[in-house]
Every structure is written in structure tokens, then in C-alpha cells.
């Protein structure tokens, strides 16, 4: 056993410690448990997923085999993955735009004072308090082809529509029923509608807070200067709401990009690959076919895509923290 000379030097040169070591390194000690947990749950898995993506590994059949980038090559030839990629983007963009747009509309509606506002506000944000699975069970029952209330509503509206059509001399329509979740052209948008119902309240809350942070005097001053409604909105509301709009757009797009649970509970990715999303693809490859290599490669692609969007958000958040 030999000790490094520096060790003795350090021992000698140190002044007699006034405080015990756990006091001196108190801050690091406090941070340590969190660091360990996060490292164990994130760094290690992330490194592992990147490594696995270069192997062919079906753990029902045996040991991993190194295959280089073949998983990635196959991934981009897989129609289901490509459809998943496309659907994820469609879903994310459509849901985000609709939620933030509707949220803005609602925020403007609820920004003014009216009787019953305090009663309606909590009711309005009710949907986002429900668990996604509860939301899915409600909508799945309403979307049901035979017994769903939506198709029933469509059918019972048909006579009224035909009456109106009759007034204009048009021929009447047949009563229609919609295959909400089983029509390949419609299924994805039905899932989008559910997401809109559940999460518009979140965009609404963010934007309402934004509106309330704009001082009313600004509007009054502008009105004195002769500005009218649309000009007020374009020149004052929108610019001052920019940060909140940005936050709402970003949060919703990151959220919707992960879409998994609604697809699982509403359509199972079908019909065909009509509602396949990247998350769902990874789930199926990894946990139904045990094709760990391919699923890992898809995970890496998805992670990179999300990191791009996240970088924007992080910059925004850090910018605000340091500005305070």
C-alpha cells in the first residue's frame, strides 16, 4: 500500500477543520440523492437506448447481435413508422393550433366581467382535471357507431336539416351515421377532437393569465387616441400576449407530440395505420413484438425530434428565470 505524496501534503496543509465535513459539503450532500435518482432513471436508460439501437435484440430469442445502423435503415423503410411519423406531426400541429386558437378565443370571452363568471370558470377547466383514460371512456361511448349519442344526434337532426333543405327546393338527405373511430380518413381527427376537448382549458388558463397581466390603462390610452376594436387587438393584445402565446404553443406541441394513451384506448393505432403514432409504434415494436433494437432506434429518432422543440422552451424558461 502506497499513498500519493500529495495526500500527505494535503493532510498537513489543511487548517484544523472547524466544522464537520457534512457541514462543509452540505449543499452537495443535499443535491446528491436527487442527482443519483435522476442519473439512474435517465442518463443510464438514455445511454442504453442509444446502444441498443445498434443491436438486433429480441429478448425472447436470445442475445443481442451488433448490426450497425441497420435498424435505422429498416426503420425508414417501414411503412408503419413513416405513417406514424406523419400522423404524429398532423396530430400535433392540428391539436396545438386548435387548442391555442380556441383557448385564445375563450380567454378573450372570459376576460370581460359578466355575471356567473366565477361559477363558469372552474367548470370550464373541468376536462383537464380528468384522467385521460376517463376522458377516453366517455368519448369512446359517445363515438360508438350503433349506440353512441353523436350518431344518434346526427340522425335526429336529419329531419330538421331536410326541412330546411326543402325550403330551398333541395332533395332531402339520407340519415347518416359516422364511423368516427373506424373510418381511415376520420379516425385521427376524432382523436384530435378528444385532445382538444381535454386540453384547450390549459391553453385557456395560460392565455387568460396573459390577458390579465396587460394593464387596462393601455387600452384606455389607445381608445383616447381613437383606436378601434381590431386595432386594439392587433396593436396591443397580440404583442403583449406574445410570451404567453409562445408558452401555450410550445407546451401543447410538446405534449401532443407524445400522443400515446388516447391512441391506445380509442383506436389501437387502426384502422390499418390510420392513427399510428411514433409513441405507439415504439410501444408495439418493443412490447408486443419484443423487437428491442428497432424500438430503440425509433426512440432515438423521437428523442432527437423532441429535443429540438424542447431547446426552444428551455431557452425561454431560463431566459425568464435569469431575468427575475
Amino acid at each position: 500500500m502506497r499513498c500519493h505524496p500529495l495526500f500527505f501534503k494535503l493532510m498537513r496543509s489543511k487548517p484544523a477543520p472547524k466544522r464537520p465535513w457534512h457541514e462543509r459539503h452540505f449543499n452537495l450532500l443535499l443535491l446528491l440523492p436527487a442527482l443519483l435518482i435522476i442519473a439512474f432513471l435517465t442518463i443510464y436508460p438514455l445511454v442504453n437506448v442509444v446502444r441498443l439501437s445498434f443491436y438486433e435484440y429480441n429478448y425472447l430469442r436470445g442475445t443481442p447481435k451488433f448490426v450497425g445502423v441497420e435498424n435505422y435503415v429498416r426503420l425508414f423503410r417501414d411503412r408503419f413508422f413513416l405513417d406514424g411519423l406523419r400522423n404524429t406531426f398532423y396530430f400535433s400541429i392540428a391539436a396545438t393550433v386548435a387548442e391555442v386558437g380556441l383557448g385564445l378565443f375563450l380567454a378573450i370571452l372570459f376576460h370581460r366581467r359578466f355575471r356567473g363568471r366565477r361559477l363558469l370558470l372552474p367548470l370550464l377547466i373541468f376536462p383537464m382535471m380528468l384522467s385521460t383514460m376517463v376522458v377516453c371512456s366517455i368519448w369512446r361511448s359517445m363515438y360508438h357507431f350503433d349506440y353512441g349519442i353523436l350518431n344518434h344526434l346526427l340522425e335526429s337532426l336529419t329531419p330538421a336539416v331536410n326541412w330546411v333543405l326543402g325550403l330551398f327546393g333541395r332533395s332531402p338527405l339520407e340519415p347518416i351515421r359516422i364511423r368516427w373511430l373506424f373510418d381511415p380518413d376520420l379516425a385521427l381527427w376524432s382523436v384530435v377532437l378528444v385532445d382538444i376537448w381535454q386540453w384547450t382549458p390549459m391553453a385557456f388558463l395560460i392565455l387568460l393569465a396573459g390577458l390579465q397581466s396587460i394593464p387596462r390603462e393601455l387600452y384606455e390610452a389607445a381608445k383616447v387616441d381613437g383606436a378601434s376594436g381590431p386595432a386594439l387587438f392587433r396593436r396591443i393584445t397580440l404583442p403583449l400576449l406574445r410570451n404567453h402565446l409562445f408558452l401555450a404553443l410550445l407546451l401543447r406541441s410538446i405534449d401532443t407530440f407524445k400522443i400515446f394513451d388516447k391512441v391506445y384506448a380509442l383506436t389501437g393505432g387502426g384502422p390499418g395505420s390510420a392513427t399510428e403514432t411514433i409513441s405507439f409504434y415504439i410501444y408495439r415494436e418493443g412490447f408486443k413484438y419484443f423487437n428491442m433494437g428497432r424500438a430503440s432506434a425509433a426512440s432515438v429518432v423521437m428523442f432527437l425530434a423532441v429535443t429540438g422543440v424542447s431547446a426552444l422552451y428551455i431557452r425561454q424558461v431560463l431566459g425568464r428565470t435569469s431575468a427575475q
Partner: protein
Amino acid sequence: MLSKLARRLGFCVLLLLVMTFVLFPIYWMITTSLKVPLDYATRDPAWFPTRLTGEHYLSLWRGRAYRYLGNTVLVAMSATALSLSVGLMAAYALARFRFPAKLDVLFLLWVLLVRMAPPVVMAIPLYTTLRTLGLLNTHLGLMVVYQIYVLPYAIWMLLGFVREVPIEVEEAAAIDGASKWKTLRAVVLPLVGPGLVATAIFSVIMTWNEFIYALLFLRTPDRFTLPIHIANFITEYEILWGELMAIGIMSSLPILFLSGYVQRHLLKGFAMQLK
């Protein structure tokens, strides 16, 4: 005068449309759970229940659905307890001390990044890890995995609350000879109490509703949490809607009570809650 009236009318109509869209599905859930099957399993479903019945709630009881409630409570509570204790220490350290080389900023960055990564990306390596540790299909394993969601969140929320504690109070404690640990426990902890409660509630809500990890890491139905049970129910029994909606209400009520309590923090809480 007339145009003002017309505008008010327009406003009311808009409001009515919005509230109908928002509230109808909830109305439908509540009434369906109280309807007899004849009222909903038909091509001509009843808008109002023709007869109220408690049979669906009774059959929940008979099917021992409270097992899932118990599992959910257990996992949510233990995950929250762990994340709060570890998170408070980390938040305090990050708020009060200077770290070398911007370690604190790096840490926060990492926390945020994790918060935004899709959970499914981590699922495969976590699955293999849990399998090696023998924690697959256990509540303990799930509780640990949930730290991915709740720990960064707890640190982020608590950081804000710790920063509001005036540093003079701590300095006073230090002058009185209290150790740093004692200061944290006896001085800071009581002061961030309300913040801890709010953070705990959000953390419970998050884990209560979590779906994907519970789906992947729990195998035995006896250990399922509520969302997994509901998902199974949806896919297995096509139209047992009365019972399904009753479970939905059972699993939503606790969350609704809790969220009523934290309404003030709602915005901050949900801005970070990225599923």
C-alpha cells in the same frame, strides 16, 4: 340600444355553445353511470335517464374495484413522499448555494429536458433495468420509475417556494448556533409548508393519472392502478358503459377535490405538468 342588446345576446349564445361542448361529455358520464342498460345500450339512447339506478356502483363494489383504488393511492402517495423529501433538499441546495461551473443551471436544464422527453423513449431500457433488479410488476418499481415525472417537477416547484423564504431567518438561526441540517428542518421546512402541500397535490394528481409506465411495468391484474384497469375495461367490454362510467367517476372524484384545493397554483402546476 338594439345593437347593444344583440351583442349581449350573441355573447350569451357563444357562452352557451362553449359550455355545452365542455360540459356535455361530463353530463353524459354522470348520467350514464346512473342509467339502466336499456337506456344506453340502444340505437336510441335516452338523453335523460328514464330510471335512476345504483346497480353499476354496486357491481363495482362486488367486483372489488377498490383494489385498484388502493393500488393507485399506495403508488401515488409513496412516489409523492419520496419526491418531496428528495426534491426539497435539492431545491434548497439549488436556491441557497453557489455551485461551481454553473452546475445548478446544468441540473435545471437536465430536469427540464427529462420533463419533456416522451416517456415511451425511456420505457425499453427501464424495462430491462427493472427486470434485472426484480422490480418488474411491483409497486415499488413503479414508484421509483415515477420519479422521472415527479422529482424534476417537485424540484422545479419547490425552488420557487424556497426562494420566497427570507434568508434573514436562516441567518438568525445560524447565529443561534443551529447546524445547517437543523436550520433546514426546523426553520425552512415550516415556512415552505404550504408550498409543499401544493406540490404534493400536483404530484399525486400526476401519478394518479399516469398511464404508460403502469401499463408496461405492471402485469398482474391484482396490482393494476385505476387508469390501467379502465383501459382494460374499455378494450375488453365493448359497452358495459354504466360500470365504466362509475369507475371513471370513482377515480376522478379524489382528484377533483384535490385540484379544488390548489386552484390558486393551477397555472404554474399545469404549465410544468407535461405528460
